[in-house]
């Protein structure tokens, strides 16, 4: 009875450790499915800017990224590509003409087309006097759910917004230009008012004071593999760079989740090692309890190696069964997890296939380890 209770505790401990470790591996895979996998194929976009402080306020050359900053940024292994955002170096205003009576000063920015998250950019070219514009979806939301509701104005759909034309007034050093501005799309990636880069560059080039701030970019769009990369976040903090909050929030959630998973996995591994230690000691105790019997068998011609192997085999088979049960429970849990709302259809219904190989690998490892340890101990401890 005492032996049974001892073994039961041992096996419950092992089952617990296997469930913990295997769950963590599966949860890691699930987290990758939900938050995006860290791989060279993954692309995440963050907008980098320098943190504003009393030293750099109002000084574009300090608040922006100079060519040296960009060169260094390109060298970061976490960074796949960078796209500097160019802003206007001249005065811009917009009005609604007689159709919509409004006037506002505004700004324009531009970035390479590759960085813009709109599929069809065929219309993103200045034709005659019409400037195609891309704004952040957030701006439209701000109008619809903030400004329009408070002011009693009608909400505007994306399609309707694309039909509205506004006057864009550009004041250059030596002349004034009038253009029609027309929305061609909304961006989820870039919080800005974007116009074609070629167009903005050509206007900036006409300004003499541009030279002071030449090649200074206040914001940079950065393509990375993984926004939760702790090295990337550490480097950004060190350099005093900030990023858009949405990406960071996701990064923080993912980072914390992985930290929790790693901690649980570590506890599982600790319990597993403890159980291996217990297995070795239980086998030792069995040998000690049966010392006389084993010694007699040894003197009669029974191989100590075979005796040790036979008991290790028994434990390994039990461990294989425990891993199988753990995986079965995990597979059932995964199935229901994948069907739940939280998975949002992103999780697979089955557990990672390679996990099933542990049914063989871990018991074989334990068999070899325990056999070796016990045999070594046995030969050292026996006094015939």
């Amino acid at each position, binding site marked *: 009875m005492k032996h049974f209770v001892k073994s039961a505790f041992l096996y419950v401990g092992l089952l617990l450790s296997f469930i913990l470790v295997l769950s963590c591996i599966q949860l890691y895979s699930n987290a990758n499915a939900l938050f995006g996998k860290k791989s060279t194929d993954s692309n995440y976009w963050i907008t980098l800017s320098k943190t504003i402080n009393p030293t750099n306020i109002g000084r574009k050359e300090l608040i922006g990224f100079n060519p040296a900053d960009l060169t260094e940024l390109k060298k970061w292994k976490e960074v796949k590509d960078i796209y500097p955002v160019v802003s206007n170096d001249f005065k811009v205003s917009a009005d609604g003409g007689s159709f919509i009576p409004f006037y506002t000063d505004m700004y324009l920015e531009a970035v390479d087309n590759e960085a813009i998250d709109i599929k069809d950019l065929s219309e993103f070219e200045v034709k005659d006097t019409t400037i195609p514009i891309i704004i952040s979806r957030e701006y439209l939301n701000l109008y619809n759910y903030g400004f329009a509701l408070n002011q009693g104005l009608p909400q505007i759909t994306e399609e309707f917004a694309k039909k509205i034309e506004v006057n864009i007034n550009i004041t250059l050093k030596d002349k004034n230009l009038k253009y029609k501005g027309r929305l061609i799309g909304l961006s989820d990636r870039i919080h800005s008012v974007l116009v074609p880069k070629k167009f903005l560059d050509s206007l900036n080039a006409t300004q003499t004071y541009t030279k002071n701030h030449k090649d200074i970019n206040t914001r940079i769009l950065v393509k990375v593999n993984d926004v939760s990369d702790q090295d990337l976040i550490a480097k950004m903090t060190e350099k005093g760079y900030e990023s858009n909050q949405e990406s960071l929030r996701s990064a923080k959630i993912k980072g914390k989740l992985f930290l929790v998973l790693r901690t649980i996995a570590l506890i599982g591994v600790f319990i597993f090692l403890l159980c291996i230690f217990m297995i070795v000691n239980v086998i030792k105790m069995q040998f000690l309890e049966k010392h*006389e019997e084993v010694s007699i*068998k040894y003197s009669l011609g*029974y191989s100590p190696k075979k005796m040790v192997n036979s008991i290790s085999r028994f434990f390994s088979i039990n461990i294989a069964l425990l891993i199988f049960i753990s995986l079965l429970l995990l597979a059932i849990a995964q199935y229901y997890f994948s069907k739940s709302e939280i998975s949002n259809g992103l999780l697979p219904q089955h557990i990672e296939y390679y996990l099933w190989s542990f049914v063989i690998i871990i018991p074989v490892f334990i068999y070899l380890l325990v056999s070796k340890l016990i045999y070594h101990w046995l030969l050292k401890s026996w006094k015939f």
Partner: protein
Amino acid sequence: MNSITLHHVIPKFFIPKTLDNSQSIWKKVSTFKKGHFYIIIAPSGSGKSTLANAVLGNHFEYEGSILYDNLDLKSLSIEQIVNYRKNEVQLLFQDIRLINDLTIRENIALRVFNKKNDLFETKLLAYAQHLGISHLLEKKAKNCSYGERQRAAIVRSLIHPAEFLIYDECFSHLDVENKEKAFQLINKVAIEEGSAVLFFELNDFPFSHDYNQLNL
């Protein structure tokens, strides 16, 4: 295996009483050949059990060498030595060594290495009958007397006899009649199997025999 040779063997940690005896086999070259019979007589403290255990390969606390044919026992691994015990060398210890919780039958069966067959059963019954322990076969070893256990151990040594049968004071708890019966049985089986027999005894047997007598 055809021979066991003691080559200038002497215990490391004690000096046998009989070391200075000119007839002693300590520190000499002695060869025991398969199919021959020996009785090695020595008083207490002369190292009988030490030598018997050394010949089995249970320890290496001696100077000199013990050879299985031409192989030095010290050069063999534990597993190789154990392998020799199946068919080549076996020892019946002075302290008998039966497993207390097993029956006499189970204890005897240990020597056939889980390969019981009809021949085993026939031999077992015949030998047990000869030594008068047939009625004890299903009894646990711990419930038997020392003499009964000694006879059971002798049966175990003969059920699957090796080429060299070594007995260390194996008749110590038997009366003369049982001693002779056991001796006759061992002798008969050894002749049938072509095995060598080495008895380590305090005194010569109280019955006639034609064994080579040596001193330790």
